[in-house]
């Protein structure tokens, strides 16, 4: 048995696949290939799949991570990727495979890209940039105990960079905490930025481009 780490995308319509559904979808994808996936032993054998960090529903991923175990150690890495791409669904593309360097619990943040635009041509840019400058972007998170906790996203937001800016369109990248201990859902961040606009009038897309370690280097 040997462990391998696989990088894949989750884009377009695939961004609407929930994490639970993604697990089932990928297990079925493996079952359509000849990849010798290792199954747990016991009464109810099932494959062993570990994900880097789940994506919120509706957010795209450029570098999603999946760890699996192979039963046959000699099975070539390239074949894993080509086999999976042979049977995959639209939006999920398998990019590369390597030996895992770090454990997923070392992931601390994510590098995101967000595109916001208004359908009705209204000016959203100024409002959003004012919010960023105010350093006071509040979101409300439910804790495990069921309490509502207020978080100021500005205290955690880093590397905010504007890529494209027009009155009715704003495109930027940023880093937010994402990991085992503390995560800020970028959709909540988006909602806070757009609190003055009706949801139906806004087109948005969020993409997670990288998962990062504490020192800011890429998780691998």
């Amino acid at each position: 048995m040997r462990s391998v780490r696989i990088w894949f995308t989750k884009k377009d319509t695939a961004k609407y696949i929930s994490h639970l559904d993604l697990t089932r979808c990928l297990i079925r994808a493996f079952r359509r290939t000849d990849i010798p996936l290792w199954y747990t032993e016991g009464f109810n054998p099932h494959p062993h799949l570990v994900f880097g960090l789940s994506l919120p529903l509706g957010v795209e991923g450029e570098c999603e991570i999946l760890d699996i175990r192979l039963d046959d150690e000699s099975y070539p890495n390239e074949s894993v990727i080509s086999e999976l791409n042979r049977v995959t669904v639209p939006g999920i593309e398998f990019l590369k495979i390597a030996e895992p360097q770090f454990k997923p619990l070392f992931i601390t943040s994510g590098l995101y890209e967000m595109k916001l635009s208004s359908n009705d041509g209204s000016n959203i840019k100024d409002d959003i940039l004012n919010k960023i400058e105010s350093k006071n972007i509040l979101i409300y998170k439910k804790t495990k105990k069921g309490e509502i906790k207020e978080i100021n996203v500005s205290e955690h937001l880093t590397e905010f960079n504007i890529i494209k800016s027009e009155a009715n369109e704003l495109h930027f990248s940023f880093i937010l905490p994402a990991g085992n201990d503390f995560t800020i859902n970028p959709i909540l961040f988006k909602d806070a930025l757009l609190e003055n606009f009706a949801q139906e009038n806004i087109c948005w897309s969020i993409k997670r481009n990288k998962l990062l370690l504490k020192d800011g280097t890429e998780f691998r």
Partner: protein
Amino acid sequence: MLHKQIESILPLVQKPARYTGGELNSVVKNKENIDIRFAFCFPDTYEIGMSHLGLKILYGLINSRENFWCERVFAPDCDMEEIMRKNNIPLFGLESHDSLKDFDAVGFTLQYELSFSNVLNMLDLAGIPVRSKNRGDSLSENPIIVAGGPCVANPEPLADFIDCFQIGEGEEVMLEFLDLLNEYKKKKATRKEFLIAASHIEGIYVPALYEVTYNEDGTIKEFIANDGAPQVINKRVVSDLDNIYYPENFVVPFVEVVHDRVVHEIFRGCIRGCRFCQAGFWYRPIREKSVETISKQSQKIACETGYDELSLCSLSSSDYTKITELLESLLSWATPQKINVALPSLRIDNFSDELRKKLALVRRSGLTFAAEAGTQRLRNVINKNITEDEILGTCRKAFQGGWTAVKLYFMIGLPTETDEDVVGINELCQKVVEEFYSNPDKPKGKTVSVSAGVSSFVPKPCTPFQWEPQDSREEITRKQQLLKETVTSKKITFRFHTTDQIFLEAIFARGDRKLCDVIELAWKNGCTFDSWDDKFKYDTWIDAFKECGIDTEFYANRRRSYDEILPWDHINSGITKEFLIRENEKAKNAETSMHCREQCNACGSNKLNGGKCDALCKNMVH
């Protein structure tokens, strides 16, 4: 790619993957090369519709033709519907995301009566007039609306909404229908010209070509065919299951659906003849698929989908003549591939030792028996030919094999039922509990649980009970109460169906065209998803009946005479009225009939299949 407008609302709804399409094996074609676009609509949510085998078969069949493109459409859930209506987004096909109005034909499958209001709602969401007569003169103005499925055993309550019904099995008639539509579309024919031509295809029923007159008491006086349409519409029957189309793959949903596995239909029809069961008669004659074909096709689908479960499907799996051979063949490849084989619809009386051992090889699922009635007398009335000894004997074997939970299904309100029969349900459950404790090999430290699902009888067309009244709602409630009061053991739990939905189902099942107005009004007043307990609006329905001047008891609780013209008499299921009357009379005397392999009871269904019935041939070989 999704249309921008749809994309902008998806983040606002629950489980958006139900509306995106793009699932594995879904079929996207270039519409420039397509002659006929067909939308297969299931009038319920994605999770339910995607579980339906008929959809998988017809989807694959239509798409196997290069110039046809079939897409899937389901009833959007309430949150999605609200947002679609608010933003003027018409109902769309999952593959192209184009509005249903762009299609040439839109087909609904009618699996249960309580989905009727959803048919109207889906047409309206698509911007298609709900009434056939308002759809214009040309074929291009609106799609042709067609419907099939078991409810078309009596299509009359939907007669004003559907342009044509496909009666019976769809594998052949669907392509004949679409070929004809293609021909008439090319020559720019009118809707009427096409519908008259379609009425000459065997199995196609165009309700607008018929006129119904009524007697003063509300019963039917005459049923008149116009424009040369046939007086009687014969149900379509596929003759050879080994050589008829079966899909090579299934669309694999992202979200979890009700039946999320490989399904294989092993035979059609049923040899048993339980007198309440519409399916048991409607799907006759008996036609078996061969072990080799089932095994080969299932393996292919398992490969193409990655499913880890295979379920055999039929009305009574253990009546398949080579069931042991079939299981051996399936398990030979399924077990090494870690695929679980499930075998539902087992009958209690031929659940043999041998079969039980075979099933024990794969993961154990629950043990479920449909006993249907609590006493032997009533089981004889309904022709459920199993004895108490057989039920208990099977439970004993199951308990010895380690099972501790048994599910039993019953019905109350069956014809001739007395309070003794009702109480008998609990007595039978109690005996099952006692059987567990008298078993010396019972699993140590474990207790038994007997769960009894108690539904209420709905008289259905095409059954010997089609003339029988349904118990009044008060009477059903009283019987449920009586049964609840008799339970003394904590090992037994009863689950009852709500009487309101059963009552509505009974009205539609044997309804006539007068109900069209009621369905339209109730839908306009907000009735949809009537089969969902939390969405069912009983009072709105009752108000609609009142406003339309319709007496509900006339449909649900009235005994019909044998000589009354029934609303579905022009639909020929193959089963003769003489046979149904014979069976009804035997029921009154609690007389049973032998099953089809012991003796042919001359139901008549083989006539639609050139005289062939697999139950008959098998009988002659022995």
